[in-house]
């Protein structure tokens, strides 16, 4: 939030409503910018934070997620023309993950659509989209308003997240099924209960929830969860730990795994949802949507690239590695977009964009990895097998009600 005492040019990054709490717990003072806000990269250690996601509960401040309120008589028609999925099936109380493309069928962004009521929706996106949303609204009776600053958001993710919320007094949260949302109340010590919108969504591939609230309620909610979580190994986490979890879950991150067609400068660096393994989100049968004709043509001739999961030999993450068909490294077929050692799978995993011809599950590629050993660089050509994604998908992420701990 901008304050009067400090002009905006002295604080070019906004602070989220959780900022003071996060700063107090940040041992490394490691902050990074995200959509115009400053957010925590690492609180204490990436590993500790990661294991909070997989073994207990984590709190992650996702207020910078860009949010739009989309309402009006044509809101559904607008969203169906904007995005590739058939949102006509999305009932109030449900959330859908979807993507949208430009006219050429190239991906602009992905995000979630919350159906809040008949013809009232919230669109959560990684990047700002107002220009494209406005262009898409020409000819539609729809009102689009960015509400990012009006809504604080906190992800509560991990196997004990449901229990944590219940213990904090969020009654009935265990009945939420994946991709459902609902209105809940959370009691707290210093006033009347806080009203929350809770959705069973997340970016970790684990059991988890996202809490959406008024910025004024952000600190009481944080305090209440940290209080009941004191004996439950709850940790606030930063973006680095989340990144490992999302790679394990096989989720894509804009700017890393694809560049939005709204930002690409070089021809040929755009990617389509078919290339990104998101064909399941593209509903050709629902009627026209932006990019449909281009995507049909692409589907007919076959995508040029394909996003794949890789199981890389050794333990060193194949960050940015170029990929080859053979150890000789003569024929280059793509590169790694995201890589991590997966502590849970005990595998060296990566997401990579490769030529479509090399994307068959089970085929072997070779990754060119550079290692810095005390400033002595080593180059290793290691085998990387194309494997199914996600790398990690525990059954608990779908179980309703979730297990009690």
């Amino acid at each position: 939030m901008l304050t009067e005492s400090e002009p905006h040019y002295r604080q070019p990054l906004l602070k989220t409503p959780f900022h003071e709490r996060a700063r107090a717990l940040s041992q490394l003072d490691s902050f990074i910018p995200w959509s115009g806000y400053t957010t925590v990269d690492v609180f204490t250690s990436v590993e500790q934070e990661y294991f909070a996601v997989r073994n207990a509960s984590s709190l992650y401040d996702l207020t910078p997620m860009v949010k739009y309120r989309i309402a009006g008589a044509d809101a559904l028609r607008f969203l169906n023309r904007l995005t590739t999925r058939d949102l006509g099936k999305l009932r109030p109380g449900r959330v859908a993950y979807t993507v949208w493309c430009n006219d050429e069928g190239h991906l602009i962004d992905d995000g979630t659509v919350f159906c809040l009521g008949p013809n009232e929706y919230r669109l959560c996106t990684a990047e700002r989209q107002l220009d494209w949303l406005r262009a898409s609204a020409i000819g539609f009776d729809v009102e689009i308003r960015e509400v990012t600053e009006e809504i604080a958001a906190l992800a509560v993710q991990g196997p004990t997240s449901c229990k944590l919320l219940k213990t904090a007094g969020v009654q009935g949260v265990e009945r939420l099924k994946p991709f459902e949302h609902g209105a809940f109340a959370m009691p707290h010590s210093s006033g009347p209960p806080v009203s929350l919108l809770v959705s069973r969504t997340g970016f970790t591939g684990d059991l988890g929830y996202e809490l959406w609230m008024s910025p004024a309620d952000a600190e009481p909610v944080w305090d209440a969860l940290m209080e009941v979580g004191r004996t439950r190994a709850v940790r606030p986490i930063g973006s680095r730990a989340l990144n490992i979890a999302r790679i394990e879950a096989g989720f894509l991150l804009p700017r890393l795994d694809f560049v939005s067609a709204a930002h690409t400068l070089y021809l040929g660096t755009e990617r389509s949802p078919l290339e990104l393994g998101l064909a399941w989100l593209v509903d050709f049968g629902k009627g026209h949507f932006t990019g449909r004709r281009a995507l049909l043509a692409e589907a007919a001739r076959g995508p040029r690239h394909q996003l794949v999961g890789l199981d890389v030999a050794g333990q060193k993450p194949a960050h940015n590695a170029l990929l080859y068909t053979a150890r000789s490294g003569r024929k280059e077929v793509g590169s790694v977009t995201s890589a991590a050692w997966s502590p849970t799978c005990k595998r060296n995993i990566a997401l990579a964009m490769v030529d479509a011809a090399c994307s068959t599950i089970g085929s072997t590629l070779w990754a060119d990895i550079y290692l810095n050993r005390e400033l002595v660089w080593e180059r290793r050509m290691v085998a990387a097998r194309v494997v199914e994604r996600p790398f990690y998908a525990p059954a608990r992420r779908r179980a309703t009600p979730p297990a009690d701990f």
Partner: protein
Amino acid sequence: MSAAGPRYDTIIVGGGHNGLVCAAYLARGGRSVLVLEAASQVGGAAVTREFAPGFKVSACAHLLHLMPPVLMRELDLETLGLKLAAADLPSTALGTDGAHLALGVDAPSALAAHSPADAAAYADWQALLSRLAAALHPVLSATPPRLGTEAWRDQAALLSLGWRLRRLGRSDLRELLRIGGMCVHDLLEDRFRLPLLKGALALDAVLGTNYGPRSPGTVLTLLYRAAAAPGAARLAQPLGGLGALSEALARSAVSAGAEVRTDAVVERILVREDRAAGVRLASGEEIASQTVVSSADPKTTFLRLLGCEHLDAGFVRRVSQLRSRGLTAKLHLALSQLPEFPGLTPAALRGRLLVAPSPDYIERAYNHAKYNEVSSAPMLEVTIPTLADPSLAPGGRHVMSVIVQYAPYVLAGAGGWPGQRQPFADLVIDTLARYAPGLGDCVISSELLAPPDIEREFRISGGHWHHAELALDQFFMVRPVPGATQYRSPLPGLFLCGAGCHPGGGVMGLAGRNAAQALIREAA
């Protein structure tokens, strides 16, 4: 839709001259064609209608000079009853105190009396212009190529364009490249001295556009006008007004087997399985066809008749940002008698009279338009069609038809056009009265069509003659917008043939002809 499939191969939305030309060619090509015209008579903006009891006028376009003779021959217009009341009409730049300047076929000799230097420069310029026009004319009468495609037709068209330009020779090509992007004001300053001559030439460059003489792109529009009618500009007036041309075009289409329905307002272009499948009329009637060709302007076609939900968002944005607001008004005067223009010969009076005393006069007139005001001293193109065609008015009476610039689509100030229509009409009459002192007393009745009126009457979004501004970024290969070039549209089965397409409007008919040829090729 019956089991036997639609009754028509092609439905053409709009019976303006381009729609009719397209229909005539398609019908000759063996298609079953239905033309649907919203008005009670065909013609669109090339129409003759009554504006005061007993007085008729060509309501929008009022002269015929851009339609290529080859088109008129191919469509047998003469056989089908098109007669010219007058041809090779002269133009006269009106000067103060009867010092007028005759332009046209014998312009150099007339000019020599005023300025021998300008007479020579004018002859040079006309010669250059006709060489450039001859080289550029084929560009207008063919489908523009697309860049970066593998299609042989595109590559051949680009090669042929390059070859034609190269054949101009070093000196003409250099001059074309030098002046092509200039404003007409600078070009005229380079070549001529007489303000009256420069004003008249500048008028031709900016007529029907959103430009003043100092606007970039105005040499392009001048070249465009010359290229559309290579050789000397053959200004002609059809007997019975421009409506007679449209009726001849309709007869040409019908004689080739097309059907033409008037009072048929198309409300919606129907889409089935992502293909144009016909149209729905305002009456609710649905008519199926394999293809739909729209001669309506791009905004009307895509945003209103088809609907944004059938189009990609980026394309819709481009269409909605198309510059298509008219700056040109039309004034019709019913005259009790022929007003006297001191200093004008009877022959000159039958032609085109230009009120554009200098490029600066036009630029000043244009200044107002930038701020959504009407010109306080407007630029005028005047004809008195009843001199050659007395049938347009009761015996002994006359009609004056005036093209007026500049008259913005949106007017600043309270009331907008309803409050300013009559004062502006009076202003135009006063402006003309400087050259014809008794004009005011001759006026029985007047009608002013401002751009919003043109939009309403002729169903042209924005009321622009050319449907879309003639500007480099809306020209040739990118006209009207990328994604809808080559007479195609993003929706399979939907095509364009109106003035919004290459090469533009101005009762030329080439958009309709090119579109028909592209469609016939597509099917082949």
